[in-house]
Structure formats: C-alpha cells, structure tokens
C-alpha cells in the first residue's frame, strides 16, 4: 500500500516536471503566435500613425487629386494609384493566360521527367531579386520595348488615346507592367498547376472515357472545377504586382500625375521608393505613409479576397514559400 502510494507520488511528481517542460514549450509557441499577430497590428498602427498629418491635411481628397508637388507641399495619390492599377493590369493580362497555360502543361501534358525540370525552373523566376529584374529591365527590356513593341502598338492601337507616342528611353508604365510579368507569372503558374493536380482523376478519366479530347476535358472538367482557385491565384499575383516597389521604380521612369501608357509614370510603391530617402517638405514623409496605407489596404484586401475565393483550397502551399 505504501509502496503503491510512493509509486503514484513518483509518477505524479514526474508528470509535474514534464508538465513544466510542456508549459515552457506551449508558452514559447503561444508567444511566437502572439508576436506574429501583434506584428500585424503594429504594422497597421505604424502606417496609420505615420500618415496622420497627411490624413488630417488632405483627408480623403488625397485619393482623387493627381497633383504631386513635394516642393509646394501639395500631394495627391490619384496619379500613383492610376500607375499602380495600369502596370499591374498589364502584368496580369500577360501573365494570367500564360500562367494558366503553363499550369495545364505541367499538370496534364508534360511527361513526368520534363515536369520535374520545368516546374522548378518556372518557380525559380520568382526567386530572382526585384532589383536584378529592374536592372535587366532597364538594360535589356526597355530598349527592346521602345524600339519594337511600343511603335508597333502605337501604329495599330494609336487611335485609342492611352496608346500615345513612345518615348526615347523606353522607361514607361508599359515597360514596368511587362517587367512585372516576370514576378506574377511564376505565382499564377505554380498555383494553377497545383490546383489542376487536385482535380480527381475519376472526373478527367470519365470525360476521356466518353471520348472527350484533352481540350474538352480541360474546358469541360478541369477549368470549371478549379475556377475559384484560379481566380484566387490571379488575385495573389495581382497583390504581388501592386506591391512591387524596386523593379517598378527602375523601369517606370519616375513621372508624376496621370500619363499615357508609353510615358514615364509612377506607382504607389515606386513613389515611396524613389522619394522616401530624400523628402523635400514637411508633409512629404506623411504623404508617403499615406500612400503606404493605401498599399497596405490593397495588400491586406487581396490576401483576404484570395482566401475567400479559394475557399478550402490552401492556395499558399503552391508558392513554395
């Protein structure tokens, strides 16, 4: 009886000791989770706090005014918002169909050995640092676009006002959009490949057994069953394009206000990157914080929207990050 009691005491004391270790580990893990959550709150607070003088001074009119004149303490975000939307749209128009096509190729057409090489290579596009993409864009892409692509587009689509005359340097909103394709494409391609791989083989095999060709399987089974996921992948790619600062700053040519497609422009992120290190008036830094607040709102919204569209698909898995 006594020995049994002693044994029970020993076990319970050992449990307590282990419970201590458990508690330490749980505490560390909870602290890490809380830190990450607190970090996000701190991000929102810091951006709002930094933007406060500009918000007080310009109010919501900041969003619709396009004059950006730091020397006269006059700021408006419309030009930067316009440039952000335009360059991101160009990137998405090129990258979405291309990325979906690559996803289809990798998931349904390529032999396994090809898949194992091509898939990682496409994903590696996303690993190239943006400063190198921008450097390449200035040295290679911009001259090519200003010599060949922009004149061609201007001569064909010049009747639409936005396709104005090309500039000499090739640094333009259009070039920035094309350069952004490099960053958006691997996201859309990798995500859509992983989505297409989740389509149950019973469905595709069933369609094949009914005599459907590969295209008919894709159009009738694969794309409809993954449409929401593809939309989410596009939104994530859009988020990447909207927030890119460095490469866009290098390629977009640093103009302010609202311009045509082939003229130098700016985006929210590129305005911050090019002006933050050298502010020229009292409201300059707060106004750049205000731009960052817009960027933050768009960025967080795109995360939430992508999550909402994707539903139960865990879309982030595919980015490899």
């Amino acid at each position, binding site marked *: 009886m006594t020995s049994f009691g002693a044994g029970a005491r020993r076990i319970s004391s050992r449990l307590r000791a*282990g419970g201590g*270790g*458990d508690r*330490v*580990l*749980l505490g560390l*893990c*909870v602290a*890490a*989770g809380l830190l*990450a959550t607190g*970090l*996000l709150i*701190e*991000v929102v607070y*810091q951006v709002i706090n*930094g933007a406060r003088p500009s918000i007080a001074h310009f109010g919501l009119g900041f969003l619709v005014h396009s004059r950006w004149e730091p020397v006269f303490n006059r700021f408006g975000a419309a030009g930067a918002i316009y440039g952000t939307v335009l360059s991101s749209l160009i990137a998405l128009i090129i990258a979405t169909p291309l*990325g979906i*096509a*690559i996803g289809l*190729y990798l998931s349904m057409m390529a032999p396994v050995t090809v898949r194992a090489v*091509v898939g990682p*290579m*496409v994903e*590696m*596009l996303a*690993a*190239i*640092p*943006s*400063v*190198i993409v921008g*450097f*390449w864009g*200035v040295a290679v892409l911009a001259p090519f676009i200003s010599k060949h692509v922009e004149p061609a587009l201007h001569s064909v689509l010049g009747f639409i006002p936005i396709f104005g005359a090309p500039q000499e340097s090739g640094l333009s909103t259009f070039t920035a959009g094309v350069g952004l394709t490099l960053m958006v494409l691997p996201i859309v391609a990798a995500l859509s490949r992983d989505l297409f791989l989740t389509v149950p083989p019973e469905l595709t095999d069933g369609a094949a057994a009914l005599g459907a*060709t*590969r*295209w008919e399987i894709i159009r009738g089974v694969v794309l409809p069953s993954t449409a929401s996921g593809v939309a989410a992948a596009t939104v994530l790619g859009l*988020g990447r394009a*909207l*927030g890119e*600062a*460095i490469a866009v700053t*290098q390629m977009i040519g640093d103009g302010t206000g609202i311009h045509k497609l082939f003229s130098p422009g700016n985006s929210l*992120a590129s305005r*911050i*990157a090019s002006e*933050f*290190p050298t502010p020229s008036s009292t409201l300059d830094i707060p106004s*750049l*914080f205000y731009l*960052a607040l817009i*960027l933050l709102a768009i*960025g*967080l919204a*795109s*995360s*939430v929207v992508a999550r909402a569209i994707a539903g139960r698909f865990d879309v*982030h898995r595919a980015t490899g*990050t």
Partner: protein
Amino acid sequence: MNVVAGLEARDPSLPDPTAPLTASGNLRRRQAVSRAVDVGASAAAVIAILMLCEVVYTVARKGAPALSFTFLTRNGAGLASGGGIANALIGTAAIVAFAAVIAVPIGIFTGLYLTEFAGRRSPSARVLKLVLDMLQGLPTIVVGIVVYGLIVVPEHRESGFAGAVALSIIMLPIIARSSQEVLLLVPNSLREGADALGVQRWRTVVGVILPAAAGGIATGAILSIARASGETAPLLIVNSIFNPTSTQLMIFGHGVPSIPMYIWSTYDLPSTTAIAQTWGAAFVLLLFILLANVGARVLLARTRRIPT
C-alpha cells in the same frame, strides 16, 4: 403506377438515358483544336523558361567579366575601377544572419503552435493562419516603412539592425508556413507512439517531431534566407545611409552597406566601369540565390525520400 408517373416527370434538362450514344461534332476538328491547345500550353512553358534563361544569361554574360579575386576581397566598387564588393558581401551576410536569428526560432515556434497545440479548426489557428497570410502578402516597401516608424524614428538614425528587423518580418511568415507544412507531414503514429509510452509532449516535440521534420524546416529557412538576401525595398527605407567604403561586421547604430543597395545605387550611373561592376555584383547575388534555391530543393527531395 407511381413509378411510371415518376419517369414521365423526369427533369427535362437531364440527358435522355434512352437516346443512342451519338458522336457530336467533327472528330478531326476536335482533335485539331485539342492539339493546338497542347502546342499553345507547351509554348507558354517555353516562354517562361526563355524568360528565366534570358535574365540569368544577361546577368552572367555582363557580370562574369567583372568577377575577380580583388572584386570579391576589396571595398569601394563603383567608386574606382579596381574596387570590389567585399564590404557589401559582409554587410549582407551580417544583416541576413541577424534577421535569420530573429525569424527562424519564432517561425518554427509559430509552426509548432499551429500543428502541435492549436486544433486544426480552432479559432486561434484560423486567426494565426490569416495573420501569416497577411504578413506574407505585405508589400516589402510597407515593411520598410513600418520599421522606419518603429526603429529609425525613435533612434533618430538608420541602421543595419533596422534592416535586419525588416528582413526578419519578411522571413517570418515564410518560415512559419513551411514549418507548419512539414510538421503536418510528420505521421501521427509517431506522436501517438510517444504518447503511448507516456513521453511528455515537449520531449516528443524535441526528440521525435522536430528531428523528423528537420530537413523540411531547413529547406524553408534556406529559401527565406535566399529571399531576404536579395530584398532591396526595406533596406532602401531603413538602411540606405552608410559609408560605402567601410567594412561593417556590427550592424548596430549605423548603416551597413549591402549588395542589393549597392546594385540599387549604381545601376544607373553614367559610367561603363561602374555599370560593369554592378553587373558583377548582380551576378554574385543571383548565383547565390539560385544555388540556395537548387540546394533547398535537393535537400527537400532527399528528406522526402527517407521514410519517417
């Protein structure tokens, strides 16, 4: 009687099961369309590969001539023709190493919390996953701005430390998410076996679960380090004022030169020698990042092959 009525009332939008199976459309045309789509999709993959090859080839072609022993061991590239990027390399290594020291443990603990302590569908896990999604979706320039308000403004000076904190914010969600994923792959039988033997949870985690997931966690850490070492936007905001000829191993209290900032500040100089050196720095950075990515993939493939 009822059965017959049911048959008559069947939904007219459904195909008639009694109709003979007839091929619709021209089979040759359908196959031609399908083949055209195959060709288009393959072409898209070729375009993506060509993009990668074009960028890597351009950087290698223009950067390789600048590489030399002195280029990697001296300071002051961009200022003189005999200069090198040694201090920028050391600075990047110091900043990224410090960022990793902050982000890797926090990221692993966050992943552990999600897999070992919070239930899969619990509210806290859902919130934390959403937070990680949002942190990962933050534009990197916004991260820079936040650290500017958080550290640079109170300290009244830019510093390598602020840069390291910014990079750690970028690395944290990457590491947390990849840790969570590999921890989920650890078979539950290992946890149950340890529980059945009466092993405490923390001993299970330290002795069984983390070793089983070590390869995958290391892969995530390497990928995040590769990502952080090329990151420019946050450094531009919080670590852009520094002496370009000094070698800084300590990152506190002063700005530290780095490879991305070196490329950023010299890529549009009107001097061919300076541009050649910038290509050299870009080549070194790209080489490191691509090798780290390939290495991480090889590591992941090897760990996946070993049955746990």
